[in-house]
């Protein structure tokens, strides 16, 4: 059978697993509640008086994802190992990368679905004013890519351990680094420490999701930003495959 068929079968099973447990529903409800609360109450959507979602809505996404995406990704491999189904999966006639891709795609689609369900915000801002919907679209694309990068990091941490809790904590810490590396207060601090040395600060900042998400929020679909997120995903999934192989050879 084709690789595509295998990936589809795995992804279908994985998606099914999300929706047959409360995880999916709890996640979606919390994600939507947080979005609503932060956009309208904390983000000052009304006070701004501008027909835009940049500062009131997308601004919060890196922080929501920090906790929510590792919660989605933590079970991906940790649970397979704990229950023992990993042994079934990897003795089936499929390549390990197909299983990795299938599981990742399923979770990423699930995050995409949660993101799509925030559509009332878009309707609201369109009802109240005339926003640039191209900018909003770019924001959504960027947000989804960023969620994918976090998710891929969670894949690695999930493959490392049998315990979902350990996986969750490690991936939150790693994702926090990805945020803080580009967070203005942290960059200022680094600049003070580095004095006139600009390149180490830039290097660290270039690893940050915030730096790369910024463009999308402003409506700029820069290929470098897209490549950044895709390469984080690619690298993380490759690292996941190396970890899984290590478990099987030692």
């Amino acid at each position, binding site marked *: *059978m084709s690789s595509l*068929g*295998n990936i589809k*079968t*795995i992804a*279908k*099973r994985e998606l*099914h*697993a999300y929706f*047959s*447990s409360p995880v999916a529903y709890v996640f979606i409800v919390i994600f939507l509640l947080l979005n609503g609360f932060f956009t309208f109450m904390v983000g000052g959507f009304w006070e701004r008086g501008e027909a835009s979602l940049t500062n009131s809505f997308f601004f919060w996404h890196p922080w929501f994802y920090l906790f929510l995406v590792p919660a989605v990704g933590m079970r991906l491999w940790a649970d397979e190992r704990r*229950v*023992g*189904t990993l*042994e*079934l999966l*990897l*003795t*089936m*006639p*499929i*390549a390990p990368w197909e299983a990795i891709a299938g599981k990742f795609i399923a979770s990423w689609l699930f995050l995409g679905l949660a993101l799509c369900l925030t559509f009332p915000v878009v309707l609201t801002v369109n009802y109240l004013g005339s926003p640039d919907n191209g900018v909003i679209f770019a924001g959504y694309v960027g947000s989804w890519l960023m969620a994918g990068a976090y998710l891929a990091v969670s894949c690695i941490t999930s493959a490392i351990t049998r315990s979902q809790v350990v996986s969750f904590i490690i991936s939150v810490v790693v994702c926090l680094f990805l945020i803080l590396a580009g967070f203005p207060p942290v960059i200022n601090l680094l600049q003070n420490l580095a004095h006139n040395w600009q390149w180490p600060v830039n290097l660290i900042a270039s690893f940050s999701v915030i730096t790369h998400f910024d463009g999308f929020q402003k409506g700029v679909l820069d290929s470098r930003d897209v490549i950044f997120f895709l390469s984080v995903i690619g690298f993380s999934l490759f690292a996941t495959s190396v970890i899984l192989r290590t478990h*099987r*050879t*030692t």
Partner: protein
Amino acid sequence: MIKVHDLTKHFGAKRAVDGISFAVERGEVLGFLGPNGAGKSTTMRMITGFIAPTSGSVTIGGFDMLENPIPAKKLVGYLPENAPAYTDMTVHGFLNFAAEIRGLRGDAKARAVHRAVEMCFLDSVLHQSVDTLSKGYRHRTCFAQSIIHDPDILVLDEPTDGLDPNQKHEVRQLIRKMGEKKAIIFSTHILEEVDAACSRAIIIDRGKIVANGTPSELRRKSEWAGAVTLRLNGVAPDTAREKLNRLRSTKKVTTESNGAHLIVTVFPRTAGDGDLTREVIAATNGWQIEELRTEDGRLDDVFRSITMPDTRN
């Protein structure tokens, strides 16, 4: 169909499997015996391609498991130890998934699922979630998964573990029946299963093969093989011992009083030629014999004497 050559697996400094070689052909059911921790599961995991060997090779239907894993894995059905299954799925959903990943679609998939459900008696729990199943049903669900694509080769790690006696019987019958057309390896530590289902058995201990043969060949290695047991009336233990010990083929004699009876067991020097039985019958002429029996040999005795040589009396 299955060729295992000089298979070795180290976990750190520990040699879990140490240079195992054997082959299984179509029509054979190979019983894999050994004490806990002997390396049975590790060997099976290498045969099915879940873990890679430190050295040695596994060839499945002509395909090397390391170099050509996908065509090799297509030929194999595998029931891992503890029968894992996706707990968040129904039995039907799980079997459909297994069929799909084996490349079955549409009608062929529906037929395969139906056949596996029938063979494993899963009808009554078909739409139940796996995590609500009893251990026996969960076990059979995973077993159904392993036969869903009607594979030429089956690798079953303790297929009767956790089943009740009726289910054990059913599974053994199933294995024996499927073994006529397939090559099957199954591991167990229940010795009666060897007689019930195997055409050949391998005993492994500390990662090495210590015995390999048909169940009756193995049984002949027991000191009980060819032993003669008598139940006597009105004979003193000393008299019996003295007389039977003098026979040419006797190795040793044990006696045990059981109420009015005396149970005497005469062990042979060499098993299986019937000399001892003839000599015992001749020597006991005139004694009041209630019962006389020639033993086949006991597998548990062989198993113990092979796998625990240090503690043998």
